[in-house]
């Protein structure tokens, strides 16, 4: 049984359609990403999954339950975008308070250590840095020992180091057996963390696949550039079935190809004992995939 099942979800605010038609399933133990530009309907989708909003159409099931059922609150942890705590509330008080809401809460003392908040235990919420607030927010989503965690725009506003730390944290959470639904508009984050991604644009799912699968769908052409240590005959490379073209840029060779072009090129160079200096491979990435799928860039 899938952990999250969304079927033809539809949600509008007045005349404005926020989510037109979204369907996907998330399996046990997955990190499932929802990727899309601002206003695509990502947050509304997860709010319907979390029971914070009621869909106008379609069906949502989480752990087999309707999101409105109170039982689900015991088993689902949500980290909300732009949700704060009282300024003077201390870190330990927040965790102590929230853990008291659940039937079988996690040991919050342990959670404080795990999330690197031990030194900030007695610090008031307003004195925490952005990264620390975010970690506390994640801790509160986990304090009920949930089977499913929804993390919405987890790393927005964090500096690069804090972002990487948070990514490690998400992987740790998954290692505990928690199924994670991750909402993001950062390509790098989706690529690094997610097993599968649903690309959402204008309230609709345009693709669901693994990050590599999404990229492969779009274009599997590679550009291999290097500076050969000895002269290389273009024909040698053009004879390879994987290679589609060779151009020269000064001392550098630019080889375009598909499939396993890189392996083919390097092995033919090795056969002729030519060392390839400054070897670089450029591949279509998730950004390119996104542009191709939605007809526009994620960040513009």
């Amino acid at each position, binding site marked *: 049984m899938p952990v999250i099942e969304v079927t033809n979800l539809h949600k509008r605010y007045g005349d404005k359609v926020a989510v037109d038609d979204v369907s996907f399933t998330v399996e046990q133990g997955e990190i499932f990403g929802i990727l899309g530009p601002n206003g695509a309907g990502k947050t509304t989708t997860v709010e319907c999954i979390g029971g*914070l909003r009621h869909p106008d159409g379609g069906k949502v099931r989480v752990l087999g339950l309707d999101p409105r059922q109170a039982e689900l609150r015991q088993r689902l*942890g949500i980290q909300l975008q732009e949700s704060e705590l*009282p300024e*003077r*509330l201390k870190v330990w008080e927040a965790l102590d308070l929230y853990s*008291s809401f659940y039937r079988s809460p996690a040991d919050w003392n342990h959670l404080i250590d795990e999330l690197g908040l031990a030194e900030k235990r007695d610090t008031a919420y307003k004195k925490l840095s952005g990264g620390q607030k975010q970690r506390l927010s994640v801790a509160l989503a986990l304090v*009920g020992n949930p089977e499913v965690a929804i993390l919405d725009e987890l790393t927005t506003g964090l500096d690069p180091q804090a972002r990487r730390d948070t990514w490690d944290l998400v992987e740790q959470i998954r290692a505990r057996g928690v199924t994670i639904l991750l909402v993001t508009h950062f390509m790098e984050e989706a690529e690094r963390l997610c097993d599968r991604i649903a690309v959402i644009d204008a309230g609709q799912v345009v693709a669901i696949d693994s990050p590599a699968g999404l990229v492969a769908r779009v274009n599997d052409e590679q550009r291999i550039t290097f500076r050969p240590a000895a002269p290389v005959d273009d024909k040698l490379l053009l004879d390879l079935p994987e290679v589609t073209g060779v151009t020269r840029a000064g001392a550098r060779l630019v080889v375009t190809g598909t499939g396993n072009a890189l392996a083919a090129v390097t092995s033919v160079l090795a056969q002729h004992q030519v060392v390839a200096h400054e070897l670089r491979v450029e591949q279509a990435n998730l950004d390119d995939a996104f542009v191709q799928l939605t007809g526009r860039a994620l960040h513009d």
Partner: protein
Amino acid sequence: MAALVKVTVVESRLFLRDVANAFFAVALPSLILVILGAIPALRTPDETFGGQRFVDFFVPSLVVITLATLGVNTMPVRLATYREKGILRRLSTTPVNPANLLIAQLLINGVAAIVAVVLLVLIGRLVFDIPLPQHPLGFVAVFIAGGASLFALGLVAAAVAPTARSSAAVALPIFFVSMFFGGVYLPRFLLPEFLVRIGDYVPPGVQALQDAWTGTGPEPLQLVIMAAIAVAASVVAARLFRWE
């Protein structure tokens, strides 16, 4: 219930941690009484006050300060802040209903009002010989009905205002009106008779407090009107209140 207790304990700590706010809400009326009482003329019986002293005449207005500050300022601003910052919304993702936070705020501010008034009555009695409320039950009834009417109006302000700042703005007219008719800005003997009569029915009902304290007991009609305002405003607040 366990969650309500826990939420109330934590919210009480937060209330006390805001030292300036807690101090002013609870101690300010007593402090004003001490300052005014230090002036001999205000401790002398006068015909203007029906043979009473100014301090006897003015203590009900000090109760109004407490109820208006806590009910129409402290509490609604706190609740609107909680909504604006997504604190109520976050709570709604847990097994606990965010209504617990609302109840906790009502309890805490209600208790603060009781402490402030007990302090005022005791200091009045011990320092200035102001008699204890002559009609204790009537006094408690007016305090509850009048307090409830102001707290309920505060909830309406918290319900209709989208942000903490605007909740203060929405609550301000209610605050000023209750303070003005409560004789806080101008002692009531300086107000024209018709304003005084209107004031009898403006929450929290300063005349009823006066009657219960040093007079012949509160008039039932005034009590009924305060209770009616409390119920009506609570219904409006419940209809309009949003968690996010």
